[in-house]
C-alpha cells in the first residue's frame, strides 16, 4: 500500500511539473510538446529500478517504445479531428483514445516474444 501511495504522489508531482511547464510556455504548439513529456515514465522507471532492478525497467521501456508510437498516431488523430470536425477537446481526446489503446496492444501483440 505504501508503494502505491508513493507512486501516486511521485507520479502526480512529476506530471504536474511538466503540465505547469506547458502552461507557461508559448506558442501553444510548443507547449503541446509537454503533453507528451515522459512524466509517468520518469516516476515509474525510477521506482521500478529501485525495487525490481535495471533489467526489469529496460523490459518496460521496450513496451513503452511501442506505446509511444501509438501516442504519435493518437495525438495526430486528435489534432486532425479537432481541426476538421471542430468537436470539443474533451470529447475528441476521449473518443480517439481507442486509437492509442488499439495500436499499443496491436504492436505489443505483434512484438510479443521478440522484445
Amino acid at each position: 500500500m505504501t508503494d502505491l501511495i508513493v507512486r501516486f504522489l511521485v507520479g502526480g508531482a512529476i506530471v504536474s511539473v511538466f503540465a505547469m511547464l506547458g502552461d507557461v510556455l508559448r506558442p501553444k504548439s510548443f507547449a503541446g510538446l509537454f503533453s507528451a513529456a515522459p512524466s509517468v515514465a520518469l516516476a515509474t522507471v525510477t521506482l521500478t529500478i529501485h525495487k525490481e532492478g535495471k533489467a526489469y525497467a529496460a523490459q518496460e521501456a521496450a513496451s513503452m517504445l511501442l506505446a509511444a508510437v501509438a501516442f504519435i498516431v493518437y495525438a495526430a488523430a486528435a489534432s486532425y479531428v479537432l481541426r476538421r470536425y471542430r468537436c470539443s477537446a474533451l470529447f475528441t481526446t476521449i473518443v480517439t483514445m481507442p486509437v492509442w489503446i488499439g495500436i499499443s496492444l496491436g504492436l505489443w501483440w505483434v512484438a510479443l516474444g521478440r522484445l
Partner: protein
Amino acid sequence: MVEFRISALKSTRPSEYFARFVFGGAATVLAGIIAKHYGAALGGLFLAFPAIFPCSATLVESHEKERKRRIGHDGTHRGRMAASLDAAGAALGAVGLVAFAALLWYLLPRYNAALVIAAATLAWAAVSVALWHLRRKRVFGLRVVQRTGAHAAKQLSNR
C-alpha cells in the same frame, strides 16, 4: 520565439491543478499495478499513457475560449483550434517519447541508471524541440495553415 510567461499560471484554477495531479498519480499507480499483475511487457505500455493530454487540451480550449469571451466574442472555434495546435505539439513530443524509450531500453542494462535517465530525458527534449522547429519552418507543417485557411491559425501558432 518561445516565450516563458509565469503569469499564465494564474489562469489555471486550483481544481485544474488538482485534477492533473490526480490523473498523473492515477496513471503512475495504474502502470505499477498492471506491471505487477501482468508483467513488465504489458505494464510498460502504460509508461507512455497519455495521462494529461486530454486534460491539457481541454484546459487550452477553455482558457482560449474564456480569453475571447472577455472581449465579447464566442471563442468556441478559436478554443478548438488552439486545442488542435496543442495536440499537434503533443504528436511531436510523442516522437521524442520514442527516443526516450529507445535509449532507456538499450542503455539501461549497460550503464549507470541515473545517467541513462538524464540522457533519455535530454533526448526527449532535443528530438521534440528539433521537430517543432522543423514544423515551424514549414518543412512539414504547411498544411495546418492551408487547410484551416485561417488567419486564426496563423495568429494562434504565433502565440
